């Protein structure tokens, strides 16, 4: 198949996917008794309607992209790092701890830098627990990660209602807001934080380089594709799995840290805002391709921010964004599978080898 034919075919599948999602979402909206077109219009206007709104989109694009970058490492080796949500939370906790220590400091920028590094360490440590549970303890990473997510949530709640509670009343709105000196700097005219954007760019390039051009990336891929062959070849699956978890946790921890210092300026129970779980969908929908990740993340961020308008404008729940995002991934999986099945029926193998969705064999013996 030549390149042109591949592209036209590919765009046809994308069109079918989008049409299917559009149909499904409209159906859901009609069931909920809402006018579909008005809902789409409000999502569009609420995300791209003004620069202020777009700056909110970028604010949620940052953690989403960071988490998805980290997840590429774990997906590459065949791990389902559902614990990423907790890794974001613990990153935020570590970061808050440093910021609290530096409340009186004369050099706020050093403190902020320290808090980001602390976030990285916190997320990586939390991922390390799940990694060791998987490799040393034989506990499936989905359940270990999930359990640790709930524990991380418990830790935040305990801190917010206990040792770090606001003087006077403790509430779900979180700890006391930090003084503006400890906020991540933000360019007032464009309402964006350049350091945060720089971190995301570094993360994207670093992920691309590591996965593509280094031994680490090659080893992760080799083990992910065939663990037993990789083992015979002298690679150490367990060590590489832990390494992939550390990368994922580190990126997630930084995301959590930026949520604290750049967005909320305090620690609150909803600090992770589901970005970790959503990043799993981003990674899947971008077909584990690093160059698609930022664009898919941007689209998801638009949906998230845009749907905040729905409760006010149309008295709908804002969870419509999640419905659209889920439907997109599901439709992609379905169409990919349908195509493969048709190819199999025709008695030939699918010709585009680049797709990993579903192509992976599942490893469940170790549950």
């Amino acid at each position, binding site marked *: 198949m030549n390149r042109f034919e591949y592209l036209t075919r590919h765009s046809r599948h994308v069109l079918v996917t989008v049409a299917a999602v559009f149909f499904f979402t409209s159906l*859901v909206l009609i069931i909920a008794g809402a006018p579909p077109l008005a809902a789409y219009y409000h999502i569009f206007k609420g995300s791209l309607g003004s620069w202020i709104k777009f700056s909110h989109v970028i604010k949620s694009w940052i953690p989403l992209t960071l988490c998805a970058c980290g997840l590429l490492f774990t997906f590459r080796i065949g791990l389902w790092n*559902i614990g990423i949500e907790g890794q974001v939370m613990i990153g935020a906790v570590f970061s808050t701890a440093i910021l609290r220590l530096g409340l009186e400091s004369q050099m706020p920028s050093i403190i902020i830098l320290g808090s980001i590094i602390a976030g990285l360490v916190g997320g990586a440590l939390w991922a390390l627990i799940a990694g060791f549970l998987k490799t040393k303890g034989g506990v499936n990473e989905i359940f270990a990660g999930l359990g640790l997510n709930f524990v991380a949530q418990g830790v935040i709640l305990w801190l917010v209602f206990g040792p770090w509670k606001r003087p006077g009343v403790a509430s779900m709105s979180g700890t006391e807001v930090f003084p503006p000196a400890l906020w991540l700097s933000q360019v007032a005219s464009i309402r964006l934080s350049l350091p945060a954007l720089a971190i995301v760019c570094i993360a994207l390039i670093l992920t691309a380089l590591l996965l593509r051009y280094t031994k680490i990336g090659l080893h992760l891929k080799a083990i992910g594709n065939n663990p037993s062959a990789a083992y015979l070849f002298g690679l150490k699956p367990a060590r590489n799995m832990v390494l992939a978890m550390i990368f994922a946790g580190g990126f997630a921890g930084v995301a959590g840290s930026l949520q604290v210092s750049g967005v909320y300026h305090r620690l609150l129970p909803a600090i992770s805002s589901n970005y970790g779980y959503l990043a799993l969908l981003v990674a*899947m929908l971008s077909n584990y391709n690093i160059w698609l990740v930022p664009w898919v993340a941007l689209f998801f961020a638009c949906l998230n921010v845009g749907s905040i308008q729905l409760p006010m404008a149309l008295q709908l729940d804002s969870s419509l964004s999640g419905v659209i995002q889920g439907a997109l991934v*599901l439709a992609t999986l379905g169409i990919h*599978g349908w195509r493969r099945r048709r190819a199999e029926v025709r008695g030939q193998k699918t010709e585009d080898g680049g797709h990993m969705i579903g192509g992976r064999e*599942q490893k469940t013996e170790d549950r």
Partner: protein
Amino acid sequence: MTELDITILFAGVIVGAAPIVLAALGETITEKAGLINLSLDGSILLSAMAAFAVAFETHSVLAGFIAGALVGALMALTVAVFSIYLGQNQVAVGFVLTLMGRDLAYFIGNPYSRIQGPQVKPLTIPLLDKIPFVGDVFFHHNVPVYFSLLLILLCWWYVYHTPYGLKMRSVGEHPRASYARGISPQKLQLFYAICGGLLVGLAGATFSLATKPGWGRPQGAEGTGWIALALVIFGGWNPVRAAIGAYLFSFLQVLGIYLQGWLPSVPAQVFQVAPFPLMIFTLLIMSIAQNESVQIWAENKAHVRAVLNMFSSMAPSALGKPYRPD
């Protein structure tokens, strides 16, 4: 509240565990046939919402239960079709459905949140309820609770003592061999996925119509699906043991309420997450129990071996690996 009454405590455990038992049994059946339905958490919420909405509109609790069961079955059907016929990763599809089910439930259920609706009426079983203690613990509840108790026995009997159960297990253990015996692994897996999904849907309906009546964001059933999934492993893919796990979990939850009364300085949220580290710990012990060197070490230690046997269990060999006809 701080006064510990054993009868009320146990009765609370039985009631609170009912939906968890249903979900865990449903998932056990699905996984016994070799398929993982990871969408449980989303399925339970979506079916809870559907059950409440339908019961509210039709003023019929029964219609609500039917709607809930159908929604659960539909979710399971999606996972099964994607995995068995479209060759997609079960974990991936299940996870997407988990998130999507929750969001769909919140979105469609929005108009029904925080309103009074129908709920299951209590039904005391005559004669049996007069038995001291046992009567109070087991026979002063409602139909879903009795159903959950009955279903444990039914599942155990079906899985281990009927030819159908044998076929189901054979498909989960060795689909190729079953195929050679004239059984279609794909059709059976699809069938048991739907059966399991029906039960998961009933679990959701039990939440919104009996255990925690009503709908809202959050409903209170969040996280239960994951617990049920872990309980299947905890139970070693044995329905009775999975149900025992559900009662243990419910016991922990009820105990949390009492502990809160005794230790008011500890925030309530800490007790709510307590079962999760325990789940990890149990899974860890189970994995250690299967370790060869540990088994050799325990060979001559009768007590240790007894404990290890309690925890050791094997997953169906073909779990998560869909059968592909050649």
